[in-house]
């Protein structure tokens, strides 16, 4: 069976849990004090969805805006984007709009965007009403997920949804032999399982 390889980027303010979400999903790890991300980290995971399999190459970016100036490769050929905000931090939610705008102008046209309201295990400190977030995403025609990297709530579903939406959006390319985009290239499924050789609790 063919595997679709696609790049997705995580975006959002600092300390909202971009790295934690990606790590939870890829390695099922959670560290309360995740090491802060400089520039970006890279993670991969092979996902089986009903339609086929997708290899997600997750490009986990740093929250500080300064890095945007230099890393033009963030969005290059990204098929999907995961915008994360912290439900206990109003400011991080307000930023979501600007991320969407930036993606619309910088990224490829058919990029699939999902929004994650992270840290939903901290319901008590919630500052963004859920209906408000849902309404906002409905207007933007973007799927919204409540996630918690700590408990794992919603993480799996969100990445699955992202994978299958990307698959749908790009299945036209499956037939062709990836002639114009390397990131979207079709490879014969690798027998070797991609495993990061890093030990548990490593850097990321």
């Amino acid at each position, binding site marked *: 069976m063919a595997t679709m390889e696609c790049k997705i980027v995580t975006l959002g303010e600092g300390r909202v849990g971009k790295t934690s979400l990606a790590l939870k999903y890829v390695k099922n790890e959670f560290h309360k004090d995740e090491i802060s991300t*400089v520039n*970006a980290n890279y993670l991969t995971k092979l996902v089986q969805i009903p339609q086929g399999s997708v*290899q997600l190459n997750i490009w986990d970016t740093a929250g500080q805006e300064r890095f945007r100036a230099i890393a033009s490769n963030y969005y290059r050929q990204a098929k999907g984007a995961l915008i994360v905000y912290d439900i206990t931090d109003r400011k991080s939610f307000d930023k979501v709009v600007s991320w969407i705008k930036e993606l619309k102008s910088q990224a490829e046209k058919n990029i699939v965007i999902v929004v994650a309201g992270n840290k939903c295990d901290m319901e008590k400190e919630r500052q963004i009403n859920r*209906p408000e977030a849902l309404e906002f995403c409905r207007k933007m025609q973007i799927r919204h997920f409540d996630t918690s990297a700590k408990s794992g709530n919603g993480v799996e579903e969100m990445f699955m949804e992202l994978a299958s939406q990307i698959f749908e959006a790009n299945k036209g390319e499956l037939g062709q032999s990836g002639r114009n985009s390397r990131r979207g290239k079709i490879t014969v499924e690798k027998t070797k399982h*991609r495993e990061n*050789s890093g030990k548990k609790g490593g*850097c990321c």
Partner: protein
Amino acid sequence: MGTGNLSRPKKPQVIYKHSLRIEFITPDNQKAEIGEFIFTSQRLKETSLNETWSKLLGNYKSSKPIEDLLKDTKNCRALTSYIRQGIPVKWRWQTWKSYINLVVISENQYKKIPLDRQMADSVIIKDVHRTFPEYKYFDKKFFGYYGQYALLRVLAKFSSAYPDVGYCQGMNFVVGFMLIVSGGNEIECFSMLEAIIYHFNIGKFFSEDMPELKKALGDFDISFQKSMNTLYWHFKDNEVYEDMWILKWFITLFTAVLPLKVVLNIWDILMVDGISILPQVALCLLKYFEQDLLTKDGAEILCFFNSLKDKNFNPSLLLSSLYRGRKRTKTKAEGKIVPFIHPRASSHSEDQRTCQPEEPLPSQTNFRHCEIIENPEDLPLAKPNLLLRKNSKINYKNSLSLDDFYESSTIIESKNEETFDAHVILNDLITEDFD
């Protein structure tokens, strides 16, 4: 989860959303020896190094053997080569300082530098507990928030003293690393950060738009292609671009990329040879893993770079090719090392171009006796057994100053295991009268 609790009354104004969750614990041992935090974590073996250095320093009976050694131009050369082989932990910080001729600002000067509140609130505070959390000094189990506060202060003060540089993620690792190496000497770390950034002229690595870093990346691209053509094109074929990996290596000066054991050796060399060594070290690393890398595709290469920190490799082997084929510069001591002139220390002349330290600075005392933090006696003491109660009545003030962190981070003991919001605790502290 769910949508409930919408009608819940809002908590009183929360000022620091990302405040440190803190319980104050007095460090068991406030006077850490230099490098102790590395020793305890890494168990470095370096007996042979120690022997060499004891011999080398044996001739100098004064209290500052390293400085005497550096003054002795003849031996200075020898020292330079010894430094490149690695410095014993107990001499490392002293040697670094002497070698780049560090001018340490006085405690008063340091205290007077305001904290960049805006930067601290919005960015730095999110990073302080995410910097080397695996090391004892930054681990709240051992040191409470002692190390984290020191880091916060150094970064926030630097940001206000040098607004054109400000704070950039990556600096937290650089300062964190220096705090670990220096035994937690906050003021010296601040001066060292200034020195590194201005002496090596890498302020524009970190500033907005990062022009120097872009240039460095471009330069690296060229030398990478020159020296390792096959690997270079392998990277390009797999769409691995410089800004995806080398940027992080440079901006953290390797501190967040490699095991600290290796970073130490790289910094030893950095002090002697200057910032120009960075790309060469990067090339050494690539050389070291070249065969591995050639078998990997784009995603695997990037994952591999991510995991370098957990790899076990031999620093001397790694750096063995660093000086091979390099012309011996005449004397490393002369002409290369320009003493760093502290921006605020106007009395120093700029003509001196040797590695000799200028006349000893009044503020410098015995270096080997290194305190974690500035003299604790000067800071207000809290009641030693003050127990912080989670549910005590709290009067929220309208704003909290980060200087409160400064004041309160010294000696307050809490036996309570629970974690709190900083602002809650700080208000506790403010409303309680200690005297």
